[in-house]
Every structure is written in C-alpha cells, then in structure tokens.
C-alpha cells in the first residue's frame, strides 16, 4: 500500500521561504493562512552559534490525533496516508487545531479582505476563490496537494518524480531540499535517503508517527 511522505534536507534548506509562498500561490490561500511555514531559531553563544531552519507543514501522521478527536468525521486519513479534511462536514469546533502537537491546522473564519485591503480583491484572488474555495467557519491545512497527486496518478504520472503530480513546495524549492515519495516503498529515493542519512521525525514522543522526515 502506498504511504505518501516527504523528506526535507536541512543541510540544503536555506530558509528562503519559497515553499511557503509556492503553497500560498498554488492554493490561493487568504492572508494569515499558511499551510507551509519556516521556523528559525538559534542556539549557542557567539561565536559558536547554530542556526536552525526547519520548514514545517502538516505531517500527515500515521497515528493522527486530529483524525481521532474530530467529532464529525470531517478529518479522515486516506488509504495513501494523506490526512484529508472534508470541508462539508467540518463543524468548526477546532478540537483538531488544539489537539495537533505541530499546530499545523488553522481555522478559517472568512471575511478576509484580500491582500490589498481597501482595494477589493484582485482578479487573481477572485479566480482563486472559484478554483480553490475555502469554507469560512472550517479548519484548513496542507493536503500534500492531493488534487495534483490524484490527477497525476490518473494520467499515469509518478508523484515525487513528475512535477505535475508533485506538491508545489517540493517543485519550487530552489535548492532541491525536499523529496516526495512512497514511504512504504523501501526502494524509493525517499526511503533510501531516510535510511542512509538517518532521517528523523519532529517530536516523535507524541507518538503520532509523522510522514514528514528530516535529514541533517
């Protein structure tokens, strides 16, 4: 069975925020909604300072807490491991937002005035609202560009290899720090890199078994 996962090479990541912006553009996300973020911290003391740059997104956990706590079955885990939100079923209780240890879910309250307040929505924003409508009053999050994956598979493309079937953040990374593929395929580039470079998950003590790995 396929289990889609992502690997982020922290040695290649330069913290350019391209993934954040690519995701926003691809999904026409309104202001203050981010499905991909870049966290930066520093440890150590001058002159021995280490900069930590971590792109973070929904981990599509194998043991997703959000799936368990959702009272209305709006949050489901697909057979391929993608944690999917059915916006037509979400009641907006935000229990999943509270429960997520990675805080990668956002409540969309609607009423956004676009990126240029006072000037109305641009043509692109209007197109975005038709192409990728979000329901106000529901919770939204990264979906691994599932629509691209599904369409790509229908066309016989391979997610993680063919750009058309690969998440936007992976495609747009200028340093090729992101990999996407099947975690259950031991021979996939993703699985090989995780084994060879000792990939780790964020906060494994939460017991969620994330599908996003990091190597450094």
């Amino acid at each position, binding site marked *: 069975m396929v289990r889609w996962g992502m690997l982020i090479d922290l040695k290649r990541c330069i913290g350019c925020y391209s993934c954040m912006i690519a995701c926003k553009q691809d999904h026409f996300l309104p202001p203050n909604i981010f499905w991909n973020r870049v*966290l930066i911290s520093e440890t150590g003391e001058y002159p021995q300072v*280490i900069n930590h740059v971590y792109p973070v997104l929904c981990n599509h956990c194998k043991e997703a*807490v959000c799936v368990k706590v959702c009272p*209305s079955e709006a949050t489901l885990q697909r057979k391929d491991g993608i944690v999917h939100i059915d916006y037509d079923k979400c009641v907006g209780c935000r229990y999943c937002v*509270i429960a997520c*240890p990675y*805080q990668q879910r956002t*409540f969309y309250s609607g009423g956004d005035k676009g990126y240029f307040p006072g000037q109305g929505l641009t043509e692109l924003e209007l197109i975005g609202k038709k192409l990728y409508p979000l329901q106000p009053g*529901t*919770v939204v999050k990264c979906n691994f560009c599932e629509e691209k994956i599904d369409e790509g598979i229908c066309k016989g493309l391979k997610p993680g290899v063919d750009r058309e079937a690969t998440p936007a953040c992976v495609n747009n990374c200028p340093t090729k720090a992101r990999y996407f593929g099947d975690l259950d395929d031991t021979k996939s580039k993703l699985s090989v890199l995780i084994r060879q470079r000792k990939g780790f998950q964020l906060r494994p003590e939460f017991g969620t078994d994330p599908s996003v790995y990091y190597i450094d």
Partner: protein
Amino acid sequence: MAMKSYEWMVGYTPQTEWIERRGILIWLAEVSNGIGGGLYLVSLYFNSLLGMLLSWLIIILLKGGFHFAYLGKPMRFWRMALKPRTSWLARGFIFLTLFILLGAIQLILSYWLPGTALEFAFKVIAGLIIFLVVINTGFVMNYINAIPFWNSAILPILFLSSGVLDGLGLILTIGLFKGNIDMMAAEAGTRVLLMINALFITIYLWGATYMGPTGKRSVIEIIKGGIAPILWVGVILCGIIIPFAISISSYFIVEASVPLLIMAVACEMAGAVSLKYLILKAALYSPLIPTPP
C-alpha cells in the same frame, strides 16, 4: 504572555483557540458546565426542584448556547454525535443531548409525580448523565498530549469537585431566598469541599511541574507570570480563603449572616471562573525545533 510572530512554535506557544477572541465562549461554556452540573448534582441530594430546574436551564441555555455560538458552522452541530468511538467531544455532545432530554423528563416527573419509582429512576439516570457531562470537559482536555499542562488525570476530578462546590454555593443562595434547604448540611459540605478543592488544585499544579519543561513553564506562568494575579486573587483569595473563612466563622456562630453568605457564594463563583480561565490561558505547546534554554 505576549509572543512575537517569529517565536511561534519556536518558543513555548500559548493555546489561543479556546480562550482568545471567540474562544472566550469556550471559557464561558465550561464555567456554565461546572455551575450547572454541580448545581444539578447538589439539587438531587437536597431534593430541590428549583435547583434542578435552574441547573437544567444553565446547561441548555448557557453551556449549550455558548458551545453553539462558538462553532464555525453551528447548523452542522448534529454532526458532532458521529464519532463517539474516539472523540471525547462527540461523547460530550451525546451526554449533553441525553441530559437535556432526560433531565426535562425528570423535571416533569418531579413536578407531576413526585416520590414515585419512575421519578426516582429518572433522577438516578439524569444524575449519572450530568456527572458524565461535568467530567467530560476534563477528558476532552487531558486527552491532548500536545498540551502537557492539560495532560493530567486529576483534571476531570478537579472539574467535578469545583462544579459541586459551585453547586453548593448556589443551593445555599436558593436556601436563603426560598428556604426548604438544609443550610447546615450545605455549609458543612462547602467547608469540606473547599479543602478538597484546594488540595486538588495544589496536586494538579504540582503534578503539572512533572509534565516536562512545558508543563513546568505553564505552572510558572500561573504562579508568577502575567496571569498570576488571577491565581492569587481569583482562585486562592476569592475562591478558597474568603469562603473558607466565612464558612469556619459560621461553624462557631451557628449561622453566618445573609450578606456574608452571599459574599461567600459570590467569591466561590469568582474562584470557579478564575480557575477555568487559568487552565485555558496557561496551556502551552512545546517548541517544535531546538531552542535556547
């Protein structure tokens, strides 16, 4: 706990969905949960129909109303019953719905057919259901591993004892104006429960310091951070010390004066409100990435 945007999930990040902006409704719903649920349990004990009616109204109008108003899509509320197998929120919704229905039947029976076996049976059932409603909040919160401060087994028990204490305060108020309540028993119960509640709060905060650095940080925020006045003035002074002092004085004077009793009840309510606020406000998420100590 003012946080800069670049500190989000890099430092300790406070929970905001259930306490800030519209999240205030959750706080109010949980306060109503404790007060309404506790009053119902206490009213069952003292057989006060007025108490039972008031608590039923508090639960349906205030708790139910605040929860309903908070939902992003309130007209889909019925969907919340769909997943009781894994979701404490779904279970809570089912308990709430059952209490509203069975509580209404119990009230009708208590008014029209008091003292019958059927009335007694419904009192038992409604009492069990409201018990589940009151402790459910604790389970909704302590299920969340992401917030170490909430991840405590004592939380449901604390909510229950706090709720029953509120109920005793309100039943005293009902007794003052309507009579028909054993005031000495209610005051004795209050005395004991004030001590038990103080003990539970102490155990809860002390236990939270063992829930890792994030749990400890939550406790530090409560004890000496920006929200410390709410603990010391709201929970401890108003919620415990003043009512306890009045309660102890009534033990020696036989019965405290009406203004003093009302002051004790008002302080207890303030304590309950403050406690729920603190628990929601002090909740922190652990940093996701390595950060300076």
